[in-house]
């Protein structure tokens, strides 16, 4: 089920709110059980068979959590449990997401013809497997109480707001809130407002930018010559699409979580204003970056080791970050691109330099590589990415500009301007400056209601609604 669907807005959400806040109001246990089953239902909607994978994950991780809480003092056994847990979760991920890819690589290297089954990808598997590993590791690290009640572990892993596309909620973040959360009136209504913001970003902005991006990338993939300007427009459209799609989804997840009394951490912090790649990765998909930092980079030694080892650690993290995003060499190349840039920044210290002129240049360098990185990310193969990148610099003998660019640009100018402005913290600053103004408050409320209605109008009218991160 998608948040941006009439099924969710008109059926699922009102029913869940009714049962959670009215029917089961007096019992936290019943609320949690209800939310668990609602979450499993949410996942099963559209993926009825894969809910069994989710249930298996809950059972195994609950079991490992119990064992590790009892054997915490025995380092050998603890490490074994964590290894087994990681093997199970990553094994699950490998089978459903990477088996075909790995098989194809083996076939091409060794000239074999392995009988690889065509396995469909359960939505959100990359998110919930990482979340499940987080549970066991945080229990081991005593950053959260072990849940003896399997239903509570199930709720943590499968809770519908962040189930399908994150943020990756660390167990330590909400461990206490599973049993002891306090739903407040402010949290409820502010959470809903946040949900509306996210819904609008996804439906009104991301979906519109997707059209332009798809036109450009599909044309290039089909072998059509696209002009320099149109290829840049397509790349920028995709840059905006992926931001509003993903941050919009995170807003919806965080907003919904808050309505139910859960406080997830922020996942995006205006990443496109970053003046270095280092800064970009502190602002983009924060939950993934911190997960890799805390569960992989630091245990490997982080930066508290020799330079060579540090570079190796970065290489592992960024190669895996790339692979996590998808079973394709484009994602690996994308991850390794960031590895190279981060190492350069680390070695030169350029990201620490700070004055007005240098910051502008740093921003330009950062946004340029981010956009080029998204081209790699979006392309369906390395060769398609190269063709597209060459188009961006006129290296395919393509014209500078054409009717495709002029048409798509002029027809999307208003949305492009809105999109670019919303990538900056302008509205947050305005919000801070007018927080004591009643008029501004009512205007904001009115605007949110209008955005909700427009989003519903768009959903009713349209059937073009891809969530990019559903591949993960």
């Amino acid at each position: 089920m998608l948040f941006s669907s009439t099924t969710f807005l008109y059926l699922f959400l009102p029913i869940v709110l009714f049962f959670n806040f009215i029917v089961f109001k007096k019992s936290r246990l019943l609320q949690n059980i209800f939310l668990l089953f609602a979450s499993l239902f949410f996942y099963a909607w559209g993926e009825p068979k894969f809910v069994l994978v989710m249930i298996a994950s809950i059972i195994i991780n609950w079991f490992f959590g119990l064992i590790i809480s009892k054997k915490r003092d025995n380092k050998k056994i603890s490490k074994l449990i964590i290894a087994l847990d990681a093997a199970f979760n990553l094994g699950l991920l490998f089978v459903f997401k990477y088996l075909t890819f790995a098989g194809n690589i083996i076939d091409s290297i060794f000239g074999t013809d392995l009988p690889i089954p065509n396995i469909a990808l359960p939505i959100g598997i990359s998110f919930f497997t990482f979340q499940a590993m987080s549970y066991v590791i945080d229990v081991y690290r005593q950053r959260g109480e072990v849940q003896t009640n399997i239903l509570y572990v199930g709720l943590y892993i499968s809770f519908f707001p962040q189930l399908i596309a994150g943020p990756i909620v660390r167990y330590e973040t909400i461990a206490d809130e599973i049993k002891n959360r306090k739903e407040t009136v402010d949290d409820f209504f502010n959470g809903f407002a946040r949900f509306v913001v996210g819904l609008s970003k996804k439906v009104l902005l991301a979906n519109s930018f997707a059209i332009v991006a798809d036109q450009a990338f599909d044309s290039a993939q089909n072998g059509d010559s696209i002009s320099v300007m149109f290829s840049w427009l397509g790349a920028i459209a995709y840059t905006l699409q992926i931001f509003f799609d993903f941050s919009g989804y995170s807003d919806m997840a965080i907003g919904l979580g808050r309505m139910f009394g859960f406080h997830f951490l922020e996942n995006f912090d205006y990443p496109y204003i970053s003046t270095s790649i280092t800064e970009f990765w502190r602002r983009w998909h924060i939950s993934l970056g911190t997960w890799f930092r805390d569960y992989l980079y630091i245990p490997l030694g982080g930066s508290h080791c020799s330079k060579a080892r540090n570079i190796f650690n970065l290489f592992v993290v960024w190669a895996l970050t790339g692979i996590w995003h998808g079973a394709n060499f484009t994602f690996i190349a994308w991850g390794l691109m960031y590895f190279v840039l981060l190492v350069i920044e680390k070695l030169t210290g350029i990201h620490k330099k700070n004055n007005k002129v240098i910051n502008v240049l740093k921003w330009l360098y950062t946004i340029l590589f981010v956009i080029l990185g998204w081209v790699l990310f979006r392309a369906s193969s390395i060769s398609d990415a190269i063709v597209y990148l060459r188009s961006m610099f006129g290296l395919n003998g393509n014209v500078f500009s054409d009717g495709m660019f002029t048409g798509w640009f002029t027809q999307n100018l208003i949305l492009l301007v809105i999109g670019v402005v919303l990538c900056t913290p302008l509205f947050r600053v305005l919000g801070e400056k007018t927080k004591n103004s009643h008029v501004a408050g009512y205007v904001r409320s009115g605007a949110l209601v209008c955005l909700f209605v427009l989003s519903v109008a768009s959903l009713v009218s349209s059937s073009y609604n891809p969530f990019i991160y559903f591949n993960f």
Partner: protein
Amino acid sequence: MKKFNKNILVFVFCMLFVGVGLFSGDLFKGLADSFQNAMSGSSDRFTKISKFEKQVDKTSSKNLLYHDWMIDVNSVKDNLTGTVYVTSKEVAKTESGFLVSPRKKLSDKDLLLGTDSVLALKNVAEENGAKFLYCAAPEKECYAELPGNVPDETRNNRATFLNRLKEINVPYFDMLSYFEETDFSIHDYFHTDHHWKPGSGLKATKAICEELQERFRYSFNPDLLRDENYTTQTYQDHFLGSYGKKVGTYFMWSGRDDFEIITPKFPTDLTDNTSQTEKHDFESVMLDKSKLSENYYNVNTYNTYKYPLYHTRIIKNNADNNEKKVLIVSDSFAQVVVPFFALQNAETHVCDVRNDQGLLGEKTNLQSYIEETRPDYVIVLYSEESDIKSDRYHFF
């Protein structure tokens, strides 16, 4: 004192909006029907569940009280933000304020499929003593000026198709070229629909009659095609066409189209084998005024000019003396041609071979039909040379 949290207003208004949509429409009935439909049949449990989910997703949008208003609201948003081409619906607006649907290039395979089918039909017609003519009605897209980011192959596909017909010696009437000598333009089409207007249908009828006369000495009465001999009643803002239904009423500020009912001033005596009426006048036989409805998204007002619900419709003109029998194989462009063309013939057999419109009756095999009925003329009146993949070229 604690500050009033204005997000409460956001929640209240949004939930009211959701509640109105939920409880005032027939959403729950729709859901019950969805469940019943999904659980019927012999498929396995997972298939039934998937089917139910898809139907719920559809119902939860389609059955909202304000479903149509939401499409209108969305069209306003699209208009204000400068959208010209809705790719998901394959509808674009021209610079002169018309909605069109750009076409992809016709493949060689489809080209051969279509033209060979027409050749086969021509051979059957001529073997059975009928004169044959393929009439290529001009699509609206032929007149469209589209921005550079909306590629359209309509004209090219049409030219390719007709060139091939020429190569294989199939007689055709290129109505686009014919109309270039006149003031026929995109304004002869509805703004929001792909069809030409009823008045254009009258012009097209005259063109076809003249062409048949020139080629085959077909006799017709030009007085029956003069504008002065018809009454036109205009229903203002009454028709939201096929393209308009997809993108919404206000995707262009002009909104809906006016709709004309054209009826002859002279007396007529017609019968129709598919008609339930015992009346023989033009209006009773040719028109269905129940389609002049204000339910713009759910009714096709164009079908006021009767849509051939049956694969074959036989209209007898009891006032005609010269016993001409014409078989016209058509798509919906003929809906506003047949009413005027039928007045020129003793019998007009109208056949729509497409299966994709939920037509009633058995699909007609034109070979058997021609052998049985022995028409004097077999005319194909088609508007889309790009749409080979539908059944329209499956004549046998």
